[in-house]
């Protein structure tokens, strides 16, 4: 990875120090909260593929997240499969759902707010279906049997959970970086910037967009599966609710959409903010969200390029050449 400024190095360094520091601060609260943040960061990384690199702002990433979680849970609860099989199946199901939504939406050329609304509707339909059919546990949701141990991917020891999640997030970020530097990534960015020009250069834009949705779906499914394995319980609102979709997109936008580090930094930042507001206003439930919202609005106003973009302006390493203008 190459950064253009000291600010960006600083930001990443801060995140790494924080993530490493969690091991040493013997606080279960920090670790627990960071674990939650990492799962959301995975959803954010998933959104980042389509929303960040592809410029296809989805408002229903819960559809992918939830499908992954449900696929795995159904296999385990209803058919008694091993959690690892559920793990793989969840990722595959997420990818398939992504391809399906993308395949339909892009076929009719939906983009912009239309695409956002369609994805939102998809997530809603899935939420209602999941809460209505017996197969998905209906409104009661699905509860995994408590079977601690790596064999069923139920890790009890928090530091190990945390370490595992760090590895998964690192792998997904590495994949993101590889995608960014690959033919596929270049095509995706080209589509975001100018779809006609991309098409003219021989890019099958439809195919690339659907593939992007599938990859995004795989990451989203992965996030959903890990949520399931961590809390052993899902229901329709928990995994298909609009809160998931909002969290998936808000992190990358605040952090910096279409960057490798943005989703993680944004999600961590927002979770720290949420935790901070909770500590500032401990006895007034609700007011912490108000403060959170105020800070969020200010962040949107004053960090239009996200955290990564903001950091890019601090201590620029390579001067812009003079003859640019």
């Amino acid at each position, binding site marked *: 990875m190459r950064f253009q400024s000291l600010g960006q190095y600083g930001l990443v360094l801060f995140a790494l120090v924080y993530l490493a520091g969690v091991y040493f601060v013997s606080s279960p609260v920090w670790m627990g*909260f960071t674990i939650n943040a990492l799962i959301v960061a995975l959803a954010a990384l998933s959104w980042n593929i389509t929303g960040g690199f592809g410029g296809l702002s989805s408002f229903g990433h819960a559809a992918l997240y939830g499908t992954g979680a449900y696929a795995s849970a159904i296999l385990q609860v209803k058919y008694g499969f091993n959690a690892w099989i559920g793990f793989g199946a969840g990722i595959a199901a997420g990818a398939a759902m992504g391809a399906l939504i993308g395949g339909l939406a892009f076929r009719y050329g939906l983009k912009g707010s239309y695409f956002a609304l369609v994805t939102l509707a998809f997530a809603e339909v899935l939420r209602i279906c999941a809460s209505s059919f017996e197969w998905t546990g209906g409104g*009661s*949701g699905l509860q995994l049997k*408590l079977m601690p141990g790596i064999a069923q991917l139920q890790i009890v020891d928090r530091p190990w959970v945390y370490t595992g999640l760090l590895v998964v997030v690192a792998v997904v970020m590495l994949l993101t970086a590889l995608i960014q530097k690959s033919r596929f990534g270049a095509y995706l960015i080209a589509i975001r910037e100018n779809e006609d020009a991309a098409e003219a250069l021989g890019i099958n834009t439809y195919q690339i967009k659907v593939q992007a949705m599938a990859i995004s779906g795989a990451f989203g499914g992965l996030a959903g599966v890990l949520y399931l394995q961590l*809390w052993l*319980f899902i229901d329709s609102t*928990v995994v298909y609710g609009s809160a998931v979709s909002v969290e998936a997109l808000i992190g990358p936008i605040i952090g910096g959409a279409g960057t490798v580090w943005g989703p993680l930094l944004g999600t961590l930042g927002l979770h720290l903010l949420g935790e901070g507001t909770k500590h500032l206003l401990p006895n007034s439930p609700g007011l912490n969200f108000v403060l959170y919202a105020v800070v969020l609005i200010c962040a949107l106003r004053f960090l239009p390029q996200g955290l990564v973009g903001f950091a890019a302006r601090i201590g620029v390493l390579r001067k812009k050449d003079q003859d640019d203008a």
Partner: protein
Amino acid sequence: MKNTFNRRTLLQGSGALALGVSAPSVLRAQTPIVKVGVLEPLTGNLAYNGTQCAAGAKFAAETINAAGGIKSMGGAKIELVIVDAQSRPEVAASAVDTLVEANVCAFTGATASALGLASSQAAAKYNLAQVFSIGTAETVVSRGLPNVFRFTPGVNKCTSIALENLKLLNQGAGNVVKTAAIVHEDGPFGSNMAKILTEELPKQGIQIVETIPHPTPHRDFSNIALRVKASKADILIPSNYINEYTLMARALNQQRVELKAIYSILGGAASNIKFVRENNDVAQYVMDCNHWYDPTKAESKALAAKVAAAGLDLTYDVMVSYATIQVIADALERGASADRQKMIASLAASTFDKSIMPYGPTKFVNGDNTSAQPVNTQIRGDKIELVFPKQYASAEAVFPMPVKKN
């Protein structure tokens, strides 16, 4: 309350340090403190019930502290650490970390089974006891977690007792009820209950003519009322939350559905005084089989007065949460220790029978209080009266309800 803990732990810590080096003047007689967690959804969808529960816990702690605290621990005062589960399971689970860090000896919660399942699982890792105020889903106690204690009855028990009571009522009235319609929310407790009813009611000679699940929130109950009306059921058995219950009751009235009885099981509104106040007409004679306190106890009356003084509605959430704090206080009293492991042992051995709930001596079997039982209430005038079981009753049941003069 929670904001004080950091400072206090700090003070305690520095006090301990100071102990070694300086004069014993730092050991001024300070009332000892024992911390109890309250994990409830204070924001989000379940905020109403969560807030009510938190209020109940506060009243209990106040009462216990006013009566001298935990005597076996030198009159230690109960300090509640109230944390917000935000109506989300993962937040509920994370909130357990906060409780552990605050060094609570046990905690109560968490209004909805989904939240409670997540929190008790997280608490299991710390050997931290969770005394469920409400957690009707049977999975709560079927997981074999040693730190789970459900003080109140689960859905199976509520339903079976409701059925028994219904049978008694119906027999007393000469078996006038022959058909029933079930309306239930499609979440865990409603669906589960409907399943049991479908199996059990026919055994009592009551035929189920209509079963209608609905989502929460639901905006319009006209269709449901019409279907109930068309089914010509004698009795309606609803099970849903307060908002839906209110809309349903109105729709039933508007569609002039004639029923011999409305007999709800764990109904969100039928034992909520607000419903009685705001929808007095339609609320009359509605029966509910639900968690409820023993109204004859002095402490219950005191609680009712406190709740009214605080401008709150007296709901079962307040009562059960109050009672769980009582249970925890009793365990502390007997164990004389705030140690988490000891609390679990102490709770497991509980035979507490002085709670405001109409239960016998507590007996936890696999974490489930086998002596817990729901009661039947009936709305009469602007009051909610307890009609079953007889030994706690404050009024005689009216069944079937008198024909309205519409």
